[in-house]
């Protein structure tokens, strides 16, 4: 098992190299650079533009060097832990991301846990009581959840929350905790605010997972080994958890990998609507302004998260199914 994990971690290194090239290419793809965007901005504000100054700025940020030079310079800096400076915010990229990544992660993890905590028992129920009223009800709710756009759900909940309590459920903290140092009370306050974005971001995933869980389990329940287990005298509950459930978890576990980055994407609209200080709005702004160091770093970090997620799901899969352990 340990050698399996080690091999998988080593395999991540070349993958990350390729990812870095692609990230860089994506940032470079649109014509022009940050200076062009900056000049446009100045022109729009009807300010004087001094071409010489722009050129010197370009030189200072190294924007005049050939692409490959800039790539290696960028990569070298990243390897030393220096993500560069955001041209737009005029702050270190590392700091910008560090300020926001924890909130993105908190929302991702919370909605992920919410999705699994809801989807697995509901899927289990739906499969073992196929075509019951409960099954139909969950199926209906699931499809509605799948079809409702995140932002609409966010708006609806915001409105309902306001009508019901008179408060606006925006942000991750109440005002009094916003700048307060960390304490248990602040953590509780965070949890009180976190459920809303977690719910908004996690709904679609939950609905999808319920379908996956239900379908897998229905397949597995028909397998001969279930009848064999029954013929041994096992009780239905024990049998269900030990045999078909464990196999039905395989595809669910393999979704962990792509759940992490999907949640970051799904978070964007919810974050905009709910006014959350997360990565997604920052990323969109960076792309719009061609703030390449920031955008590139975010792409790199999301890709790394994807790889880590994939690794996690592979480890869970290997733990669930001995056939996979020897395969890679």
């Amino acid at each position, binding site marked *: 098992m340990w050698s399996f994990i080690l091999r998988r971690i080593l395999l991540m290194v070349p993958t990350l190299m390729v990812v870095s090239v692609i990230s860089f290419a994506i940032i470079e793809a649109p014509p022009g650079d940050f200076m062009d965007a900056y000049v446009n901005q100045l022109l729009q504000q009807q300010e004087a533009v001094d071409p010489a100054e722009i050129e010197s700025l370009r030189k200072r940020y190294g924007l005049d060097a050939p692409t490959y030079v800039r790539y290696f310079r960028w990569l070298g800096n990243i390897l030393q832990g220096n993500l560069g400076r955001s041209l737009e915010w005029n702050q270190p990229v590392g700091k910008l991301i560090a300020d926001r990544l924890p909130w993105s992660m908190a929302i991702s993890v919370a909605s992920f846990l919410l999705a699994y905590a809801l989807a697995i028992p509901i899927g289990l129920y739906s499969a073992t009581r196929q075509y019951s009223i409960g099954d139909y009800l969950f199926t209906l709710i699931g499809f509605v959840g799948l079809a409702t756009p995140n932002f609409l759900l966010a708006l609806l909940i915001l409105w309902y929350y306001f009508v019901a309590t008179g408060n606006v459920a925006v942000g991750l903290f109440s005002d009094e905790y916003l700048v307060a140092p960390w304490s248990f009370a602040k953590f509780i306050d965070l949890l009180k605010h976190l459920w809303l974005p977690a719910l908004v971001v996690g709904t679609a995933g939950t609905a999808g997972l319920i379908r996956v869980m239900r379908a897998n389990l229905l397949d597995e329940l028909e397998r*001969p*080994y279930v*009848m064999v287990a029954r*013929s041994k005298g096992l*009780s239905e509950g024990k049998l269900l958890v030990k045999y078909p459930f464990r196999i039905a978890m395989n595809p669910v576990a393999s979704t962990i990998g792509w759940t992490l980055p999907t949640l970051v994407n799904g978070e964007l609209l919810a974050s905009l609507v709910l006014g959350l200080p997360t990565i997604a709005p920052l990323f969109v702004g960076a792309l719009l302004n061609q703030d390449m160091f920031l955008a590139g770093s975010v792409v790199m970090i999301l890709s790394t998260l994807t790889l880590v997620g994939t690794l996690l799901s592979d480890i869970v899969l290997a733990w*669930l199914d*001995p056939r996979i352990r020897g395969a890679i």
Partner: protein
Amino acid sequence: MSQTPLLLSVDNLATHFFSQEGILEAVDGVSFDIHAGEALGIAGESGCGKSVTAQSILRIVPKNGKIVTGAINLFQNGDSVDLVQLDDRGQQIRQIRGGEIAMVFQEPMAAFSMVYTIGNQITEVIRLHQECSQNEARERAVEMLRRVGMPQPEQTIDAYPFALSGGMRQRAMIAMALSCHPALLIADEPTTAVDVTIQAQVLELMKDLQRDMGMALIVITHDLAVISELCDRVMIMYLGKDVESAPADVIFRDPKHPYTVGLLRSVPELGEGHTQELDPISGSVPSPYRRPTGCPFHPRCPEFIPDVCDVDLPPQIELAGGHRVRCHLYVQD
């Protein structure tokens, strides 16, 4: 014939499946007795209801199937219990499953879960039915694996099923079924999924174990050779009905029902020195959703009597020597 006490008595069992296409009468009025230590073979083409009969005894019929009539009495220590009346999820039937009546399934590849070692799956059934520690259960499992001829049982017990060969898996399956010393072992096509060379070994093994452990055996198969190898009595099924039953030597020597006659004629024989003309039964098994009126075999029967066979279901006729047949040819007025 009945020197030993009666162990299991199936009386007019009918198990039907209810689906959108209609009602499938998989088993429709089957009766047989089995005595302690006796070996009964149930033979017939696929779809004749052999496996469903076995599943009905253990009450593990798939969820859209239901036992509609009949009784299955299990006799033990002077007491009898009708398995049909038990709650199929209840404590009582679960103690019988795996403990008193165990089953060997057709495909060892699909019958074992691939995510647990065979040791895990064997000790599970031991600990379910016997008071013992994990270590004792493991020792008993190793002992049982040794008994079924598993090489290096101490190591093999920790193997996953997918790492074993087909023959080894079937041995492990038999070990699992026998690990609680059941009074009755039901083997559903025990040799269908293994190679011919392994088949002989598995049959030999089952014969030895049955004799040594003094248990009763029901062998379900479409292969008459398996029956002649293992069984004292034979029951032939066709479309959910028990068409004929007799001691094994009688049925091979003197089959009465035209279906049995046809079945025996369509078995190829080896080593005759010349190519042998096979004599298959004409036609094919009708759709189970539209079973023929009267005798279910009449559309294919060479001895078909018009206005009799297609109208009335033949009664079960008792012939001499425990030979029973369900055919109008033997009705005496």
